[in-house]
């Protein structure tokens, strides 16, 4: 086990709910993250990420439901837009909607992790550790750019159609 030194890490919290934005920011600071920037919607977040003069953001936590640019739009921009500063940026999507189809949509847009509301210390630190300890290789193909969506390597009784091993 290693004791993390988070003081050099920079995060961006994106949420149009000012309470949640403040809560997440202060929780990350309590964990020791050195710099936590805040944005109140996806559009502001894009501007901040594009601002090369600001400190480099190492990971983003973004709420799904925001106006006018929501978290899914922001995620899509990070992964697929030419203006994205880092298409490999870990993006943790925050959502109160844990219906299967919504989670699948976020996965297919390239979310690194999903953080469900209500947020707890355990759920937040678990996602944080995951993006550091267990980063997934990226898949770059015509229809998808993002972390490998195959997270498990379970035994499968059907016809094997995978052409390569899943990411660790």
């Amino acid at each position, binding site marked *: *086990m*290693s*004791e*993390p*030194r*988070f003081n*050099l*890490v920079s995060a961006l919290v994106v*949420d*149009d*709910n*000012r*309470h*949640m934005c*403040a*809560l997440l920011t*202060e*929780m990350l600071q*309590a*964990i*020791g993250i050195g710099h936590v920037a805040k944005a109140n919607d996806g559009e502001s977040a894009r501007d901040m990420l594009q601002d090369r003069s600001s400190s480099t953001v*190492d*990971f983003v936590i973004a709420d799904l*439901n925001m106006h006018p640019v929501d978290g899914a739009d922001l995620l899509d921009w990070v992964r697929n837009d030419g203006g994205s500063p880092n298409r*490999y940026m*870990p993006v943790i999507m925050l959502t*109160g909607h844990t219906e299967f189809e919504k989670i699948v949509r976020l996965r297919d847009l390239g979310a690194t992790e999903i953080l469900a*509301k*209500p*947020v*707890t*210390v*355990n759920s*937040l*630190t678990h996602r944080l*550790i995951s*993006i*550091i*300890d267990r*980063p997934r*290789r*990226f*898949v*770059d*193909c*015509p229809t998808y750019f993002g972390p*490998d969506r195959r997270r498990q390597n379970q035994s499968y009784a059907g016809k094997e159609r995978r*052409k*390569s091993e899943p*990411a660790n």
Partner: protein
Amino acid sequence: MSNKDSRFVDPPNSLRQKIGGDTGPIKIDSETMEQAQSVIDKHAESYVETVQAEIQTLTETFKQAEDDPAGRAAHLESVADQVHEIRGMGGTYDFPLITKIGSSLYDFCQSAEGTPSQMEVIKAHIDALRVIVSQNIKGDGGTVGEQLLTGLRTAASKHLSKKDT
């Protein structure tokens, strides 16, 4: 991968590089976890007071919508914006009914045209939010909470597509 247009990419783990240390699994110590929990506890203490003030503002905005039929659509947009703020944090502080009723009201406001019956539905939602906070109804609220939520959702569904004559 067999498709020549598809490839795996192993991006550098810049987070790990910044954090330093060995490559073993990260462990966050219990003291740090407690500090993070104390942040939630601190926000929880002020949450009730904050949400009461927000519900009061919501009530005043709704009153403006009632008093101003010509500008009702804009006022109801404000109601939706304000309830979006309110609903977001309920679950975190063990007030899931605030989140659920807030979401019901938010969804309703997306399509409501401000007819008299729809205004009644909106008012019922706001009244319910106020009662939950004033009575400190945490968790799912038991049978009463379930009945309340079901009643509001049913009313919302019933009056959403019907224009008053």
